[in-house]
């Protein structure tokens, strides 16, 4: 056996190098570089707006400031508005809108902040810089996250508010100071206006507040310290304690809810104001629920009313989205955390970080959402890859508990866990682990680029000027991939142009694009009286099995 002493000066440079910045700053720098490189890669390969939804998010924001009928009403009533509001300053510039880089900027900023706060949250739980850095590294090196942060998709907007709200909420549980509670409520508010998952987050936080104060009032726990337990509430002292705790709970719940739930209230009010129905997003023809009904009628909604299948689908999706090795290790970390009696509020922390699991299992079970993943979905289904990006919501959970596991290991264990991060990266690199979010965007059902119709090339090459009547919901063509200015588009959100065009197509439009059975087809092509006008004023310039394009004959 040989013993080598590596003297301090030999590796002092390493410490000096690491000490140039604070650990958070290193995380920020690393996230910036990784995110930037991923975006450059997506940009040059044409993957930024690969998802069909990616363009829709960009278009919603663009219409607020630059459309036939600009205004905030263009935000609509299905998708929550905050990610689109963030996009507005960037989509003002046509180049950023058409390339999708507007979305990359928003998602990229969210990604960087998420990485930094994953570091901070892990540090809050572990008090260990290395473990916290590795937690952030796990998040930063996740290729699903890296891809999504280069796109206008809204997952990163939710993730950043989820992490921020969770961080401040856990900070509040630790010190019971009011400012973190207010911050948690504020970021919860932002989350509720980013994706519906955010609603589950604030509900859970309110529930945790209840659980946090109530057991103490009844003397049945809340702390692991035995001395604090079992205060008899029938005694005078117990009654006072109950009163005190109740009023504390009441005050903090009101403080938290006033801000956290106002987003939900605003959204319901918005639905009522703009669309005349506060629950428009749950049951309109454009809602997720309506879309799931068509899967259900085909017998292709496997998790519907089946809790085990719902859990299985989301668990496998989450595992694949975080990386199988990372996810399994994080479950070990979670178990270590759960059985660590010294950790105060460990159940509450766990409940909070598991919100995406509860939410997604519930929505799958209720038929409000659907996931198709090749490893589980029967090959007899029309599609086997869809919505798998929902799994990335569990990436913060995986990163934080991976970090926690690192913190509890010896030097050798830490080295091994670093090796596991590298191994996971290798599995992605050699193709053993699929980058699901990327695959869905490029050739799953969520993809637009996998099924670009020939009509897209026709309109891109032949559009000259004038207004275009199109049912945007059917995604017949991609507007940003043409030279059509947004203010020349007539779609369902342009009152009264849309309604008038469906009865008098010649009134505004120079071009009409219709897809079999879309709103334009049904209202113009299928109705004989309007159809006659169509052929009187328009030439059919493009015909395919499902898509027809008409151009105005003359300016009469």
């Amino acid at each position, binding site marked *: *056996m*040989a*013993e*080598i*002493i*590596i*003297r*301090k*000066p*030999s*590796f002092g440079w390493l410490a000096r190098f690491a000490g140039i910045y604070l650990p958070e700053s290193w995380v920020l720098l690393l996230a910036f570089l990784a995110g930037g490189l991923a975006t450059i890669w997506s940009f040059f390969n044409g993957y930024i707006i690969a998802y069909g939804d990616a363009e829709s998010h960009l278009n919603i924001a663009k219409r607020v400031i630059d459309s036939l009928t600009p205004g905030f009403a263009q935000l609509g009533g299905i998708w929550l508005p905050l990610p689109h509001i963030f996009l507005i300053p960037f989509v003002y510039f046509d180049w950023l809108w058409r390339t999708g880089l507007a979305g990359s900027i928003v998602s990229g900023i969210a990604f960087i902040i998420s990485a930094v706060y994953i570091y901070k949250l892990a540090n809050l739980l572990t008090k260990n810089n290395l473990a916290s850095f590795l937690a952030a590294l796990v998040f930063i090196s996740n290729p699903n996250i890296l891809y999504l942060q280069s796109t206008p998709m809204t997952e990163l907007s939710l993730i950043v508010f989820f992490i921020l709200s969770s961080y401040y909420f856990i900070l509040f549980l630790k010190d019971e100071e009011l400012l973190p509670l207010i911050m948690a409520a504020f970021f919860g508010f932002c989350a509720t206006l980013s994706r519906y998952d955010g609603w589950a987050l604030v509900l859970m936080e309110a529930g945790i507040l209840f659980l946090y104060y109530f057991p103490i009032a009844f003397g049945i726990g809340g702390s692991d310290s035995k001395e604090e337990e079992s205060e008899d509430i029938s005694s005078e002292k117990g009654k006072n304690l109950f009163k005190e705790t109740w009023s504390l709970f009441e005050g903090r719940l009101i403080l938290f809810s006033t801000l956290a739930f106002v987003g939900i209230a605003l959204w319901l009010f918005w639905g009522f104001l703009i669309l005349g129905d506060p629950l428009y997003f749950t049951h309109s023809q454009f809602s997720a629920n309506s879309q799931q009904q068509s899967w259900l009628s085909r017998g292709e909604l496997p998790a519907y009313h089946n809790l085990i299948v719902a859990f*299985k689908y989301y668990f*496998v999706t989450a595992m*694949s989205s975080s990386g*199988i090795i990372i996810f399994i290790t994080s479950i070990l970390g979670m178990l270590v955390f759960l059985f660590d009696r010294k950790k105060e509020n460990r159940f509450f922390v766990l409940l909070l970080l598991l919100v995406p699991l509860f939410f997604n299992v519930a929505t799958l079970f209720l038929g409000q959402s659907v996931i198709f*993943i*090749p*490893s*589980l979905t029967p090959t007899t289904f029309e599609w086997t890859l869809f919505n798998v990006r929902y799994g990335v919501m569990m990436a913060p959970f995986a990163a934080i508990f991976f970090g926690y596991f690192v913190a509890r290991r010896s*030097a*050798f264990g830490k080295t*091994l866990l670093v*090796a596991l991060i590298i191994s996971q990266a290798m*599995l992605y690199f*050699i*193709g*053993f*682990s*699929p980058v699901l979010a990327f695959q869905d965007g490029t050739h799953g059902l969520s993809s637009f680029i996998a099924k670009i119709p020939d009509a897209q090339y026709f309109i891109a090459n032949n559009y000259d000027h004038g207004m275009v009547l199109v049912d945007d919901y059917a995604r017949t063509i991609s507007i940003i991939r043409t030279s059509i200015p947004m203010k020349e588009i007539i779609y369902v959100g342009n009152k009264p142009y849309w309604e008038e065009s469906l009865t008098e197509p010649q009134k505004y439009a120079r071009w009409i694009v219709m897809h079999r059975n879309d709103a334009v087809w049904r209202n113009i092509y299928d109705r004989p009286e309007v159809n006659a006008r169509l052929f009187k004023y328009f030439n059919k310039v493009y015909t395919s099995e499902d898509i027809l394009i008409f151009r105005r004959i003359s300016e009469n």
Partner: protein
Amino acid sequence: MKKDKLIIIAIFFLGLVIYLLTLRGVAGNPVARDFKENLDKPTMPFELSPERGRFVHVVNLAERGQFDLSREWAEVAYPDVGIAGGKFYSFFAPGTSYFAVPFYLIGKKFGLSQVAVFFMEVAAALISAIFIYKIARKIFNLPNKASLFSVFVFAFASNAWPYSITLYQHIFTTLFMVAAFYAAWKFANERGGRAWLYASWVWAAYALSIMVDYPNAILMLPIMIYFVYSTFSIKRVEEGISLSIRWAAIFTFIVFVLITGLQFWHNAHYYGSWRELAGGIQTYRHPEEIATNASASTGTTKNIVAFFSEKKIPHGLFILLFSDERGLFFFYPIFILSLFGIWFFYKKSREVVVFPEYVLALALILTNVALYSSWGDPWGGWAFGPRYLIPSMAWLSIFAGIFISQGAHTGIKKILAFLLFLYSSAVALLGALTTNAVPTKGEALLLPIKKYNFLKNIDFIGNNHSGSFIYNTYLSGRMTLLAYYLIIYFAVALIVLLVLIASRNKTHG
């Protein structure tokens, strides 16, 4: 110590007798024309392509001194035959075939070349069983009876039995795994000259295991990581950081280099490139088959790595662990107890300072299960039980031993263990005495028989249709196969019952 030696001798002779009673084979030195519609029929020694594909190389090595196959022997291994440099090879890693050559040559002198080659697997299984005993006893600190029970679970109540009496790679994988585990542990705890021996042993086992089956490079990784862990130790000292290196592990790497060098030489010499693996060479198809079957073509190659994929894991896990066609817990429910054993031993492993070894055993199981769950064919083709999990069964058997020996209520635990042993052993013996050629559910449902698990083997017992060399050669006219089955079964059950009864002690039920 003396008792342990006696027990090891008992394991060897008991295992030898029982395994020989079920050893698959026929008398004679088979030649190529003996195979078609004869030795390749169900219950015959070459009922499936893995046995044929390995044996043909043994014959060619022994008879011609060449690994490549003559055309007539290539016909025997067909359709699992590839072509490289104009010569024929089967798709199986060459290690097992090389090891078998001495057995073939000895057996041939007695007119028992095939039986002798298959006996090599029995020998490997017995050595594995002895290592399992030593690991249970010395590393996991189990009482000798519980350690013996672990051995019996592995030998007679797991898939190891049906695959210890035929020509497959699994038993060798298990042997190299348990041997390397034991050697790595000895290395970790040994100083001086012997440490060099153990380190060499670890490297040799790793290299040889890869020769036997390429995925072993990954399967054995946890042991190699443990080995590295024992080699380097880092601690903070006042002057800086102290790094201790045990040079024995570093210098004995030469053993790995030499053996792997031989493997590379083999690849380069026969397949045309040191990087070319047996499974990756071009497939060969008969010209007449290409003429009649549009999908058949010569010259296609397989990307072996692409056959593993994460998306296959959920389905693979179900097939390997729970399905009624290959599921571990369906075929061998004794291993349910192992899960409890793992749970019970979590704390205990820290008390007896074997936590790293405990984690290592778990890592080996997890790696095995994860690797073959992601494999495109978790069934292992036509096979009996979850054959890819045989290496894990060695570790699960030890945890079954832990289950009966740890904590309270050991009496009830032993009754439960015995009942589950009876079921598992009955299943294992069905496979060992009859056939491993059990179709997958998907294929079976297209066949008249419609059976895709050990129920198919029961029919063979009823029809006196055995693969056992001893039964077919000496006893088939004198007793039914059912009687033969019951004699072996009750003998094994009785031995295990005695072990469980004898393992009662004053402190535990």
